[in-house]
């Protein structure tokens, strides 16, 4: 009974601490999504792969989105002609290198400021490295999801000045889902082709309404994942015997592997994952906490379904392995030489 109480108090405490940051992240990303024009941003990006990778990883400061929001933005960036290094740098760094996540991490780890600094430094380093690797590939299409690749290929073709009149819906081939009268969704359209344009082009009144809708949707989606994450954290704390956690958490290698596995499974949003990590702070090594905070936002279970809308599965596996190895290496250095 005491354990149940402890677990529930822990659960609500995590929820109450994380909710404001989640809300702030959602509010910011909704506002920026609808008021920042990505095309202008892309035009300002450097073409040099290394510089592009760095610029791409810093774009997160303008789109404070967590890992659920960054995939659609990265997809739009790629489909609007951003260089691969910019898009990949953004995809991997944006969930961590942004003001809200840095603030949340600072809130959680006030007495270990090195965690806050190293989290940003490591995330940047890994994102820039992988983005540079991607920029070596001159033709990205074998790596991309077929839909996105097709879209990239078609953007090279100039758009005809006079749009051809749409053929009768009855004469189109494909699989359709009928929605409200007059509207339909083509199921076999590649995901990227059916993507709406950047909403910035819409009138202000509608944009505000769309923003509200985005806030509600993201709060629902990310809030539910937060609840599951908080429940897992609370359960582990209460149910798993302390000796097991201690023996796992004090080893320089086992602690990193355990936290990386946990990060992959828990899939908690990057704006609030520092509070999750905090609940392990007293027993796990600093390196392993960093591994959780760096690895989790880049790849996790929840991310796979989103990443599949952008890349082919073997590309995702490649990114996973690369991110995993780099995280392991960097945080092992922390465990062995710094802390």
């Amino acid at each position, binding site marked *: 009974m*005491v354990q149940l*109480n*402890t677990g*529930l*108090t*822990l659960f*609500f*405490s*995590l929820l*109450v*601490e994380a*909710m*404001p940051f989640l*809300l702030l992240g959602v*509010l910011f990303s909704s506002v920026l999504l609808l008021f920042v024009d990505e095309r202008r941003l892309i035009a300002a990006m450097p073409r040099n792969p290394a510089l592009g990778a760095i610029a791409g990883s810093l774009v997160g400061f303008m789109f404070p989105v967590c890992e*659920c929001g960054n*995939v*659609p933005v990265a997809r739009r960036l790629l489909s609007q002609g951003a260089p691969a290094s910019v898009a990949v740098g953004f995809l991997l760094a944006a969930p961590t290198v942004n003001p809200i996540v840095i603030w949340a991490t600072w*809130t*959680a780890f*006030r*007495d270990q400021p*090195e965690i806050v600094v190293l989290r940003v430094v490591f995330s940047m380093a890994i994102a820039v490295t992988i983005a540079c690797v991607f920029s070596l590939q001159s033709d990205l299409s074998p790596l991309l999801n077929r839909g996105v690749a097709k879209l990239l290929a078609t953007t090279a073709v100039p758009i005809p000045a006079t749009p051809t009149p749409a053929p009768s819906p009855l004469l189109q081939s494909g699989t359709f889902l009928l929605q*409200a009268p007059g509207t339909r969704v083509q199921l076999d359209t590649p995901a990227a082709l059916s993507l*709406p344009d950047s*909403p910035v082009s819409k009138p202000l009144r*509608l944009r505000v*309404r*769309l923003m*509200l*809708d*985005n*806030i*509600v*949707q*993201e*709060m*629902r*989606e990310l*809030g*539910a*994942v937060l*609840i*599951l994450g908080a429940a897992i*954290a609370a359960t582990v*704390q209460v149910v798993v015997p*302390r000796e097991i956690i201690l023996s796992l958490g004090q080893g320089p290698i086992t602690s990193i592997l355990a936290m990386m596995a946990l990060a992959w499974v828990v899939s908690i949003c990057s704006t609030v994952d520092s*509070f*999750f990590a*905090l*609940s392990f*702070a*007293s*027993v*796990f090594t*600093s390196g392993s906490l960093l591994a959780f905070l760096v690895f989790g936002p880049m790849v996790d279970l*929840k991310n796979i*379904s*989103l990443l599949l*809308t952008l890349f082919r599965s073997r590309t995702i596996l490649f990114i996973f392995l690369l991110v995993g190895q780099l995280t392991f290496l960097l945080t092992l250095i922390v465990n062995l030489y710094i802390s």
Partner: protein
Amino acid sequence: MRLKRPRRRTQPFPWLDILDWLAIFALGSLLLHYWISGQLSVLLHPDFRWLSNSAAILLLLVSAVRGWQLFQQVRRRRPVPSLGHQSLLPRQISSGLLLAIAIFGFFYTPRAFASETALQRGVTETLGMTRGQPQQFVRSGPPEDRTIIDWVRTLHVYPEPDAYTDQAVSVSGFVIHPPDWPDNYLMLSRFVITCCAADAYPVGLPVEIDGSRSDYPSDTWLQVEGRMATDTVGEQRQLVIQPSELTEIPEPDDPYAF
């Protein structure tokens, strides 16, 4: 109550939108409830309570505007615009989960951690472990003004117990019965938090009592006045409070130390 005949609509009734709205409204109300009832003090460090309180207001504002939008939609049969969204969990499950947890939160009163949790987490007299530096230096002042956490921080800086012999002590905390200690010793303890209950860790000082510690059951809150002495407890030479007065007190509103 008279039932109205359902009106014919071109748009289906937005049940799912209403569920979303309810979930956000309930979450905002739960945070507001924690704020007003003072239960937030069991969950969060005082520095961060304003965050939760602002989130309550923002969530309620969002739900108010969204509620108005939905009302318009139902009344004028106007569809709510949508961006289209990729989601991981089915929509009903997400909003149902949020709503259920928020409602449960209204009925469940969070309780401050107690001795069993302290024993499970391991009480320390030092702030060592993986903690970094102590957050603040010890306040200079008479020893009887120090709280348990001040004493533990002082010991962390200068651990020799003999240095404190015969200093006056006046501290409050809850009782723990460490299993490997003799019957005439108990530990007076407090949980320290830096952010929220998730990182709460217990610190404590041994108290030597006349008679059996069963007179002071676990989790009783005590105010202890006395003098410091050095003794060997649990095979460790350490600072021990020799009390002149032990008073039972109610659990304080802010049960944690900072």
